[in-house]
């Protein structure tokens, strides 16, 4: 374990010399496999999510065979939510991660001995869901109602930009971004903002589709991505292009090690990642110390 960490910290000293500027620029000007102007990327991505919002959750289930639920559960368990925490879920649109965090906190509470201190702490719990797309937030709010979380003061919905967050420095115990960082224009700005809003001791967690290297599995995964997913998008959502963008944007996103070095560059310590399903998704984490 320590050898791997040492190797990673050595690599993180070397990689920045070769990767970041070129990687960041290419990410800012790519929309899937297409080249676009930096100023336009945000609008193009916005259009995609406005279109997919109403089918977002069904499509996630279909594309991942329901696995995305397990991945989000893993993300939330790594967060170790606690009553009274202030949390920010960025690009959290339809609420999946936020709901799981709240439900985890409440289930811990129910098992605990009756304690007035606990009740006071619960009043303090604040989960903020921030998304740049109002359609996604509206879907999220409706789902919260359906799940019985709608009237809770603990859940707040904010329309905001991950690159220009609307929270004070050192205000959050936790920060999550699930399947969102791939879509931003400037990854480094998002990471810098994440670092800024987290308190000392706060944890950064990112769940994102990532890179598969294992020989045979990689071919199968590529086949599935490029042949099956856009067709599913066409059949279920009537929108092939958005899902084509989705699979292309996964390939364009930096691989696990490069992304880990970007997180370290933003100031985070103890940067690690865990591959799930052979690298189809990865959970990157870091601490603000």
């Amino acid at each position, binding site marked *: 374990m320590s050898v791997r960490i040492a190797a990673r910290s050595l690599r993180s000293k070397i990689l920045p010399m070769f990767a970041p500027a070129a990687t960041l620029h290419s990410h800012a000007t790519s929309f899937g496999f297409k080249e676009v102007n930096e100023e336009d990327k945000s609008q193009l991505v916005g259009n995609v999510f406005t279109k997919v919002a109403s089918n977002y959750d069904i499509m996630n289930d279909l594309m991942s065979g329901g696995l995305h639920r397990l991945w989000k559960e893993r993300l939330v368990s790594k967060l170790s939510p606690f009553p009274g925490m*202030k949390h920010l879920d960025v690009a959290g649109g339809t609420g999946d991660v936020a709901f799981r965090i709240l439900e985890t906190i409440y289930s811990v509470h129910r098992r605990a001995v009756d304690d007035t201190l606990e009740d006071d702490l619960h009043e303090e719990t*604040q989960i*903020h869901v921030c998304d*740049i797309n*109002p359609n996604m*937030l*509206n879907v999220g*709010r409706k789902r919260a*109602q359906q799940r*019985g979380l*709608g*009237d809770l*003061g603990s859940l*707040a*919905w*904010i*329309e*905001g*930009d991950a690159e*220009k*967050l*609307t*929270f*004070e*420095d050192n*205000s959050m115990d936790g920060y999550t971004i699930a399947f969102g960082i791939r879509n931003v224009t400037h990854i480094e700005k998002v990471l810098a903002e994440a670092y800024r809003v987290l308190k000392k001791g706060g944890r950064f967690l990112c769940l994102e589709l990532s890179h598969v290297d294992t020989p045979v599995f990689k071919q199968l995964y590529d086949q599935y991505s490029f042949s099956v997913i856009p067709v599913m998008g066409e059949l279920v959502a009537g929108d092939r292009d958005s899902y084509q963008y989705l699979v292309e944007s996964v390939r364009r996103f930096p691989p696990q090690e490069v992304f880990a070095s970007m997180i370290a560059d933003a100031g985070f310590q103890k940067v690690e990642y865990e591959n799930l399903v052979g690298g189809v998704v990865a959970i990157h984490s870091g601490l603000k110390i």
Partner: protein
Amino acid sequence: MVRGSSRVVEIISKTLSEMLVCPLSKQPLRVCEKSNSLISHAIGVSFPVVDGIPCLVPRDGEIIETDSDRTTADSFDAKTDHKTAQE
């Protein structure tokens, strides 16, 4: 389950409004109940609250015109002003 929904969703909670800051200047925001918006005095911009959701994406902001401020600066659109504020 949803009681008095139209009135409730117009107001954002006090706790939330105290936590939010201007996305550009990171200074505190003032709640303006009359116009249902959040005002950033640091840069003179107001952000709308739509259906109970504060819209704090920089491009959502609108420059506030004050009576004593009729200079050419007012004719700049929100986007330009945000770029300057960022620098």
